[in-house]
């Protein structure tokens, strides 16, 4: 659907400001009440979801006169979707979808920002969203892993750009491999042949580049006869599971996040964490595993003329209810010695780490500010470590912690599971 298709949704915005905050029932005081990093940092109403909808609706009416300010508003948003959850507590209207379409339109109209252009150029040239050093599959050298493109495997482990290329993150790939091996899974990787999922390009508004990656990936997956894909990066997970489905490209590929796969293995008792890990932790729900990991709902319909904003057939909204919230918690709770302390903003109304929507690339200072807010919240729980389930969150938190000399530790959940098995 294009931006025009969301005209009615955008006109529904009543300016209530709920999209700035976590759902009202969940507000626990003056601290940690905000859901939207963009409004919390930039303050002008235009930087809230409601403001973005108002602006996009006005441009639809009056024409797309781009300015630096418009681009600043469009790009300084993590596309984290917290706004949609808070709005959709009470309202029946799409929020993140028109914001996404607005982004796509700016790119299609040729109004881009240099930092993001650079990343997308690199995606085109080198197939990666992060700087390339060496070969994509170098992290696996010596591990003797199966090549899923040529060997029959039950599961494809899709590693992702950041985990593959970033020397500090390769440990996550190794931990994941270790876990899958311990669980006795017949899995493989695609190594140097692995391609970017395109999800982060989509968040930045580069729909064509995303579709290009998606088609290439699905062609390879089909050719290799892969039925199940496991991702340890939440961005990849959401791309394969939700975005590919949105564009009817996923077919019947089963997509699981590693935390779902571990939780399943724990239930089936193919994986048994036996070692104690004495640590008080808090868990950060990555946006794209949590609320944005909710399955896509295919729908096409027309507004029923009359007094209500209702459709034929009825429209079911993705309100963040069905994201992946429990499996990571089940996994943490299965490790003896781990004590889980929850933050105020969790699950469907979790605060973003700051890295999404191209903000990491286009405005690192804003990404850091957002991460610092989360670190502060994590520290307030009394936890020694913040645990997440996405390399982008881990990277951003680590950078923020280094800058502000916090003693909080950062782990991906696979690192803790690896310690425990």
């Amino acid at each position, binding site marked *: 659907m294009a931006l025009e298709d969301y005209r009615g949704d955008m006109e529904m915005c009543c300016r209530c*400001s709920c999209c700035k905050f976590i759902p009202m029932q969940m507000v626990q005081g003056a601290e940690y009440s905000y859901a939207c990093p963009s409004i919390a940092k930039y303050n002008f109403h235009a930087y809230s979801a409601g403001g973005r909808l108002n602006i996009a609706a006005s441009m639809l009416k009056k024409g797309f006169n781009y300015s630096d300010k418009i681009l600043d508003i469009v790009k300084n948003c993590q596309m984290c979707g917290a706004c949609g959850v808070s709005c959709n507590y009470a309202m029946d209207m799409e929020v993140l979808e028109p914001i996404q379409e607005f982004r796509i339109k700016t790119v299609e109209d040729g109004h881009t920002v240099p930092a993001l252009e650079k990343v997308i150029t690199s995606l085109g040239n080198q197939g990666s969203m992060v700087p390339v050093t060496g070969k994509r599959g170098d992290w696996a050298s010596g591990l003797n892993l199966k090549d899923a493109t040529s060997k029959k495997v039950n599961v494809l482990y899709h590693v992702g750009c950041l985990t593959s290329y970033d020397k500090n993150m390769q440990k996550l790939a190794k931990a994941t491999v270790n876990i899958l091996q311990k669980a006795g899974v017949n899995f493989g990787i695609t190594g140097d042949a692995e391609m970017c999922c395109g999800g982060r390009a989509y968040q930045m508004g580069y729909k064509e580049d995303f579709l290009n990656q998606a088609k290439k990936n699905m062609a390879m997956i089909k050719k290799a006869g892969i039925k199940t894909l496991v991702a340890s990066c939440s961005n990849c997970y959401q791309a394969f599971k939700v975005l590919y489905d949105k564009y009817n490209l996923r077919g019947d590929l089963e997509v699981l996040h590693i935390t779902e796969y571990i939780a399943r293995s724990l239930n089936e008792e193919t994986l048994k964490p036996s070692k104690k890990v004495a640590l008080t932790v808090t868990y950060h729900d990555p946006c794209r595993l949590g609320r944005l990991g909710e399955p896509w709902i295919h729908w096409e319909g027309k507004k029923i003329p*009359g*007094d209500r904003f209702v459709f034929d057939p009825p429209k079911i909204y993705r309100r963040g209810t069905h994201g992946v919230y429990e499996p990571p918690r089940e996994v943490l709770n299965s490790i003896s010695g781990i004590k889980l302390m929850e933050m105020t903003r969790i699950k469907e109304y979790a605060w973003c780490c700051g890295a999404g929507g191209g903000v990491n690339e286009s405005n690192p200072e804003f990404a850091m500010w957002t991460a610092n807010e989360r670190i502060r919240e994590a520290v307030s729980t009394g936890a020694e470590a913040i645990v997440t389930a996405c390399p982008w969150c881990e990277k951003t938190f680590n950078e923020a912690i280094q800058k502000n000399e916090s003693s909080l530790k950062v782990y991906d959940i696979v690192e803790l599971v690896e310690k425990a098995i």
Partner: protein
Amino acid sequence: MALSKEVYKEFEDVVGEENICDDPAIMPAYFATEFAAVILPKDTAKVQAIVKLCNKHKLKFRAISTGWTGVFPKNTILLDLRRMNRIIEINEKNMYAVVEPYVISAELQAELFKRGLNFCIKGAGSNCSAMLRGHGHLDQTTSADDRNHLAIEWVTPEGEIVRLGSLGSSDEWFCGDGPGPSLRAIISSAVPPGVTPGVFTKAAIKLYHWPGPSKLPVVGKSPRYTLREIPANMMARYYSFPSVEKMWQAELKIGESEIAYELMGFNASMVASNITTCNEEEEEVFRRISQEVQGPGFFVIIAGNSPEDFAYKKKVLEKIVSDADGKSLKSVEDPEIEGILLCQCVRISASIRETFRAGGAFNSIPIMGQRDLTIKWAIGAGEAKKPLIKKGLIVDDGGAFFGWGVEQGHLGKTEIFCRFDPLNPEAKKAVEEWRKEQCARAVNERYFADLLMAKIDESGPSLSNYHLWWRKIVKELDPNSVSPEGGPLV
């Protein structure tokens, strides 16, 4: 009229370049009004400096808190008070809280619950400013803000900082009337949303005892939050009655016996909005509930300070309801639904479901006064809604109204609204006409109604020409005419 570079620079010097913007790009987000500039002051001193500059350059200005509502003249300087979001003090001993305009009610209430306290949250919702004046679900026990505002800090249209009440003499926030300048007569109808010009920068709000837990045990995922369990000594019910008279009899008795923590005169349609998560479900539940209720009704929360107190209040409630032939709505007795309503109606978090969700717009007439009389007026306004419902121009709520008593007495607020699709010009026009007619009827029948600005000169003479006095006061306060009125005089 864009500001000249020099004038813009003067404002920028006050707040810093990141806190002022006149780029047309942001204006659609601000009521689609072409403001001369939007400025984000951080504190009272900055507000004062901005107001003085507005006077110097004869520029009109207005302030917003969360900015939900308002109509503003083009080229106004808008003070968006978003950065003024501090809870300055919660004084447990003297039971008041001092807040800045962008503290939302949900934030203040959560802090208060931790201390066994609560305050009057406006029916608009806890997403609004905690500081703004109004009425709400808790009026039975927390009264309304005519009484709840204690000392107030106000930047006048000329840029003087006036500290009202005890603040004016002792730096203490405990009283709105003094020792120190009271000025309550000006402020009482006027702390926004209202008409007093200038900017309100801080207010002390009276606090009340909260018998519930320090944090409500909310469970579930959005959009269906409920309570894990109904907190000890609390209960929520909806009762319907065979007639308006019977309902009123029960409402009055409940007030007299001082047993209700909350009494909210929801109609069946509002109950349906509250407990459903989408429009389709709402329509279906409304149809079902309409069959279950026997007539008009209200929602009640009982909150005891001890098991004995709770048992007593419950028993009295049951007796009053039974004497008036009231019937409890079975759906609400289901603990999940009871939990949804209890949570939403204490944390005031579903007014949007009641108003905007259906069609995207609503138009409302609130009437203050003696409840049994204003209800009679509302029945007429409800009848006048029915042809619009029949034509499919507004959402079918059975022609219902709602309202609630204030301070356990016979006075209260009665309100009626139409929900519609604002993109349907026919519906919009029909609703506007309905509103005009029903407001005029209210005024003719001598009710205290929100008067449309255009009508003030007509209705003023029957109200001691108060509007003329008000204009004289405003002229004194705002000699440069830089602070336009924020809304209709009430």
